[in-house]
């Protein structure tokens, strides 16, 4: 009986220790592949398929299948098997990746796209454009910070920034949505706030007059 109690206590302490040590699971940083474009990912996938490492469809999406293929390749070729296609891996693969002018021409664009992806992936396209437009409307407003990064990184402004999802690599849709917004598209007519009625708990945000609803989000002027 005593031994059982000791064993139980030890298990309990181990579990407690394990829970404490578990690092907060934040999404991995971007830059899985140079350029992060569909073309680049397809090029990598095609090459890996020809070499026999990649068995799935060449779809331009960097998922777990692609990553394992990259790792397997890196292992065989004596490279650091981290699943990231950097310059060394690119050379070993004997392909040339284009550093797309799109993603690198503006850090603001990329940050905006990350925010859209983090907050609204899965929403209809116009909903993603709307989210990007809200960020830009806040920049113009006297009530909010005056830069795109200031608005996005304002503490507690966006839940997806709080929990690290902002660091995920945005997909093509998010990039296009951000581009549209930066070129002037604003389906919300100047709204400064949005929320998901199914999950929003702040009493204050419910008090705002809703101008329109797109997908799961309601948009308000504030």
């Amino acid at each position, binding site marked *: 009986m005593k031994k059982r109690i000791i064993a139980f206590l030890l298990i309990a302490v181990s579990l407690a220790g394990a829970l404490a040590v578990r690092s907060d699971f934040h999404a991995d940083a971007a830059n899985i592949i140079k350029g992060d474009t569909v*073309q680049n990912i397809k090029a990598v996938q095609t090459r890996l398929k020809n070499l026999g490492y990649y068995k799935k469809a060449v779809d331009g999406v960097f998922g777990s299948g692609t990553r394992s293929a990259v790792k397997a390749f890196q292992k065989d070729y004596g490279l650091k098997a981290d699943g990231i296609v950097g310059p060394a891996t690119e050379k070993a693969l004997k392909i040339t990746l284009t550093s797309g002018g799109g993603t690198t021409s503006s850090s603001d664009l990329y940050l905006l796209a990350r925010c859209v992806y983090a907050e609204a992936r899965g929403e209809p396209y*116009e909903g993603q454009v709307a989210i990007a437009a809200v960020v830009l409307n806040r920049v113009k407003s*006297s009530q909010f910070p005056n*830069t795109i990064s200031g608005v996005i990184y304002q503490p507690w402004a966006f839940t997806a920034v709080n929990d690290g999802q902002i660091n995920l690599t945005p997909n093509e849709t998010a990039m296009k949505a951000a581009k549209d917004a930066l070129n002037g598209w604003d389906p919300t*007519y100047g709204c400064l706030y949005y929320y998901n009625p199914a999950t929003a708990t702040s009493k204050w945000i419910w008090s705002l007059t809703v101008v329109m609803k797109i997908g799961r989000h309601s948009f308000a002027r504030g």
Partner: protein
Amino acid sequence: MQKTEIKQSKEKNAKWISGIVVLSLLSIALLIGMLVHIEQSGRYRDSLENVYQKSLMDVVADMNNIEVKLSKLLVVESQNQRAALSADIWRQSAETASNLASLPIEHNSISSTFTFVNQLGDYVNYINTKLSDGGEMTIEEEQTIETLHDRAIALRGSLRNMLEGLGDGYRITDNIKRKGPQIGNSDIVDGLKEFDANNADYPKLIYDGPFSDNVKSDVYRFLENKSETTKEQAYTWVNEHMSDIKSITYNGITKADADTHSFNVLLNDNSSVYIQLTVRGCYPINICSYRQVSAAGISKEDAIKSAQDYAASIFGLDNFSGVWYNADSQDNTAYVNLAPVIDDVVYYTDLVIVKVALDNGKVLGLESKAFLINHADKELEPIVLTAEQSKSLVSKKIVISGTRLAVIPKGKSGYVLCYENYGSYKGYDYMVYINVTTGEEEDVLRVIDSEQGSMLM
């Protein structure tokens, strides 16, 4: 009998002991890991605390400086002093806004403080410009500056009280909680709320500047004499102007500055198009869609023509001209900026932006808010200068390659007629806009990324 029992029990014991040893080692390892993690967290927290403290201290220090400078601004007589003080106030209020933005305070508690700080710098700059141009302050404007100074005194006071209240050893990071937005840092917030509460009699600031309280709602001048359309008429528009339609969903009327019919149209290739048509006149104000375009097939000229033809068919005007072309080689789409050209004058204020797919030239998107708001008769300044004269007013460093007349946006809702002088210096392309009457430089634009976009002359 007893020997085997003892033997069995000894074996059992051995199993228990080895189990306990393994678990103990595991626990110790985990405990050590936990301690290392806690220590590291502590270090992160200390650096973050320092950043927050610095931001808070800077807000207080800057507001002190701003208040002093404002008080001097009320009494200086010379333009030099006024210009220097205004520049300082503008810079420091921008810094204050930036520092406020970094503090972990829920936005609602500080949004009026933000507005105050932003408008303060902006307004001071506006007055300074006005006076430097030879104008005079109106009675209201003098009053406004006095009020702004009073507000600055109040804010500075609230911040001082707040700091005293916090005392030494106050840690901002003590109040960061895991769950979403919280009041957190209520001591800081209360300090600012006191300032906030006295904002009731704060005047609306109407002036020519980006943060003014001006014209919150837009007047859509192009729609002024157009009649209202019904849902059925809107459906007809969609059917007439779009092809390969699979299904149409009507989302109802969105009530905004211009009421619009909102649709989601599903095409045969399963891409979805979002359209907002104005109730008055049934014009598209926003068309939002995208599809993957695998490769470019048409030329730049064809893309521009496609955009022009589309805009012409939508708005019934044949004078749209491409003024800016921005192609994305990654997406194989192009943003074509169109402006009406009337009597050789390019109306940048009445812009329509069309997104074109570069494989077949089909239109993927449209944005026409500026056009619908601004396209109406305009009273233009009389042309006093010739094009040649305007060129001579542009910096000699710029090698001018072209000049034409253009109406550009000026201020929140204004516009001005200028000569647009396009040229280059040091490898950069510039557009210098010279007022046709006064010869003043109204604006200078520089092309930021000529790889992505190009001017169309």
